[in-house]
Each structure stands twice: as C-alpha cells, then as structure tokens.
C-alpha cells in the first residue's frame, strides 16, 4: 500500500460512505460511522438525513462530533428532540432506513459484541456496553457496520452478543422477530463483506486495492468465505479524498481551538 496516495482507513471510510444513498434516513453511531455518514452527506448524498441518539434530527455538522451529543449537532439540526423521543418515535416508530454502526467485535453472522470480553460476571475486558445498538440493529431498515478487521475484532465465537446480526444464520433473525433486514454490509480497512443470501454468513465480496485475500483471511478469526466473483473496490476518488481530508482537517482545527 506504500505506493497508494491514501491510507487503508481512508479507503474504509470512503467505501462505507458510498453505501449510503442520497435521501436515506440514517441513525448514526459515533466514530467511524459518523465520519462515513458525513462524508456521504458532503459528497454524493447531500440530502441524507442524519439522526443521532442524543436527539438531533437532520444534523449537518461542518466538523465531526467528538461525542454523540456535540453542540455542533444540535446547532445544525432541523430539530432536536428528547432522547426518549428519538428511540420511541423515530427508531421504534420505523422511520430509520439505515442504522450505521461500529463494533468492538463481530462474528461470521455479523453479530456484534460491545459488552465484555471473557465471562460477563468476571470480564477480562469490560467494554462500554450496548448504547443504542441492540434496537438499531433490530429495527433499522438495514444495518451497515464499519470496523477495522483483525484477529482481535473478527472473532469465531463471541463471548457476548450485544446486538444481533443474523444470530446462527439462515432464518434465525426472522424467527427472532426483527423487522429490519439486518446487516447488509460490513466495511473494513481490507474489504467489504456481505451476508450470503441463504446462510447469511459474511462473505468477502470486494477487496480493497493493494490487499490480498490472504491478508483478509489472516485478519479473520474463522475460515472466511470468499465470493467467486470477488470484486475490486474502486479506489477513493480525488473528490472523495479531498472532502474527507478537508473534513478531518476542519475537525482537528475546531477541536484544537476548543481545547486552546
């Protein structure tokens, strides 16, 4: 990747942003999802509606929020409602097209762990917890997941399922009564994984430039399925890179100013 004019995480963010169609109503998690969703808004999806669990509806931040409730989100939103209303009327109300999530760990059926590593009652690592993810994962029309891919994040057997993907695969999700389609893509720094239409097992369907299938296998905690028609991810365009870098620059400056 040394010859590339962009980083793996830039590729990840751009690839994630591309999955968000214009006009979509998107429930945005903080961190990578927020970066990708705002990049989409600043490039191909100017009319995307971004909803944050803290209350802002239609937020249009010029710099990325460091927290899920930054003032910039409230100041640029069409309206700010209470947190109960966000979860009751807007998420559970069935108004979210796409839930955009990150994760600490994920398994082959796109189930997510953000709770504990090790036993729940005596955890080796206590993670932050569920936040809004369990209901976003269950109720959003579809779910996009963005996280870096390595042996610590792509796990054969999760110690804890915080938020459901396809559970044990097949029709297990439908049987569990979740209205949303579930994860339609997992975007990483190495490629894009999508669920098999039948087994719902995550399959590598697109490989980022400069990455080998072996690298992806090595970064996955289970025997990863590879699509027969494995695609090559289109590299970030000049427009995408420029927008992303300008966004991150504005963000650093803004938060620097705040701290000064």
């Amino acid at each position, binding site marked *: 990747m040394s010859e590339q004019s962009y980083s793996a995480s830039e590729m990840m963010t751009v690839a994630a942003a591309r999955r968000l169609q214009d006009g979509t109503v998107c429930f945005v998690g903080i961190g990578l999802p927020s970066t990708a969703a705002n990049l989409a808004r600043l490039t191909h999806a100017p009319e995307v509606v971004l909803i944050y669990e803290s209350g802002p509806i239609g937020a249009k931040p010029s710099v990325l929020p460091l927290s899920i409730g930054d003032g910039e989100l409230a100041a640029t939103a069409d309206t700010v409602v*209470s*947190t109960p209303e966000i979860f009751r009327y807007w998420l559970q109300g069935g108004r979210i097209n796409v839930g955009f999530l990150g994760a600490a760990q994920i398994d082959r059926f796109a189930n997510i762990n953000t709770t504990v590593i090790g036993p729940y009652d005596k955890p080796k690592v206590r993670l*932050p917890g569920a936040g809004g993810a369990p209901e976003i994962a269950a109720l959003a029309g579809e779910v996009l997941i963005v996280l870096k891919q390595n042996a610590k994040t792509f796990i054969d057997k999760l110690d804890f399922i915080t938020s459901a993907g396809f559970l044990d695969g097949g029709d297990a999700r439908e049987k569990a009564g979740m209205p949303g389609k579930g994860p339609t893509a997992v975007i990483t720094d190495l490629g894009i994984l999508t669920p098999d239409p039948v087994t719902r097992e995550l399959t590598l369907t697109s490989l980022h430039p400069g990455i080998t299938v072996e690298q992806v296998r090595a970064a996955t905690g289970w025997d990863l399925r590879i699509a027969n028609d494995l695609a090559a991810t289109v590299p970030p365009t000049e427009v995408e890179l420029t927008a992303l870098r300008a966004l991150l620059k504005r963000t650093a400056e803004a938060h620097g100013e705040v701290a000064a």
Partner: protein
Amino acid sequence: MAVITTLAEAVASLVRDGDTVALEGFTHLIPSAAGHEIIRQGRRDLTLVRMTPDLIYDQMIGMGTAKKMRFSWGGNPGVGSLHRFRDAVERGWPVPLAVQEHSHADMANAYVAGAANLPFSLMRGYAGSDLPKHNDQIKFITCPFTGERLAATPPVRPDVTVIHAQQADRKGNVLMWGIVGVQKEAVLAAKRSIITVEEIVENLNAPPNACVLPRWAISAVCLEPGGAHPSYAQGYYERDNRFYKAWDEISRDREVFRAWMQKHIMDTADFTAFRRVLAESQGQRAA
C-alpha cells in the same frame, strides 16, 4: 418547591448514603460540579443511574462512592474506556461495583416510565441480544391484542436526580435547551432533585413549548457557572475535548488518579476552586 441555595447545602440536605442517584446529561449539560460535591462530602453506597456514565461517574466509582450502577453505555466519549469503571468491574477496586445493564432505548423508556409513574416500561427490544440473560430486571410480556412479545423493565425512580441547566429565574423555574436528553424525565421520575444552572435571570423568556421545569417540581436550584465542565452548555461555553483526552491518562493509574482527585477535588472548597487548581495543573503540563 425549589429553594435557591448553595450546591454544598443542596447535596448535604438532599443526597444521602445508600441513595439511588441519577446525575443525567447526554454529553451536554453534565452536572460535573454536583458530582464533585457528592464526592467531596464523602457519600457512600450510592446506586448510580445514567444512560451514559462518563468522567463524573468514573471519578465517583474510583473514589468508592458507588456500590452499583444501572446504565446503558459507559465510556469516555470520543476517547475510549473509563479506567476506574473497568478497574471496579474487572478487579473490584476500590470496591466491587454491581452492574445492571440495559440498552439506551430501554433506559430512556425506563426514565419515561418513572416520570409517568408506571410500574414498568414497554418497548420492542433486545431481540437476539444476550443482555436479558444477565439482567433479571428485563422481562418479556405479551400484547393482549396482537400476541406480540415486548420487553419490560421497572422504571427508573431515583431518590435524587441531579442535572445542570442553562437558566433559572429568581423563583426557581428552570429552562434548558439544545440536547436535553432524558433530563426532564429524570427530574420528574425522582423523589428529590438538584438543578445547577449557568445563570439566574429575572425572567426566563422561554420560547413557546421550550423545555421548562416549574419550580414546584424541583427541590433545589444552585448557581454554578461553568458547572458542566468539561462538557458544554449550549449558548455558554464549548466542550473541553482536551480534558476528556487528559482524563484517559489521569485515570489509567490508581495512584495518579487518587493524587489527582485529592489535589483537585478533595482539597478544593468548590467547583470554582477546582477550576482554578485545574487551570494551574494544565498550565504546568503545557509548560
């Protein structure tokens, strides 16, 4: 009926050992000054409730103030882990911390149920999640009309709720705006309440349908300008992101944490003194 008093008096008279206490705030308007005062006055065995426990709860947990926490996401927003929270859960230092864990949606609904005096909240939740297996306060009930299965949990009913708002008038009516989170529900769900404010004004001049808490629904109002630092108060000051990052270092090591708490909170008289000492420390670090 709201009395306008000092934070020290409000905490002394309204927050008791063993209470269930909610200091709420969704990254905006976090009642830091009040949290410090509770630590300063040495409260013990508190059950802490909060959707998003952050630095204040990390400080309280690290000082042994709490025995239990009911929550849905505990982290340092935009930075990472709460090291004191992890140390208490993973290694029981300084005292073991029991956790009752929910999702945000469930916690938000539980606050609503508390404010509405309902014996349980109701939501479409936890499908496929392991959380209900580890929280016996999450049950499932059947819709009497459709047969659908819904998650139910007991309401949040704190002994005391503590929040920070932008303004109060001289009678004690409170106005807040921007990201208001679950604070209104948290106050209405509680037996007693303390609200610290940026400013006490002659008249609120609240816009129509603004988030106003009438004085007769509040126990105490305390003037604490800057009292939400390092979080922010819309219209007053911005978030001190640098402090959130600094906290990651301060809180990593038990001794460093204890020394910092002693110097900045236990050895300061109030939040104003804390801010002064903090400014000195930051100056030294910058130097």
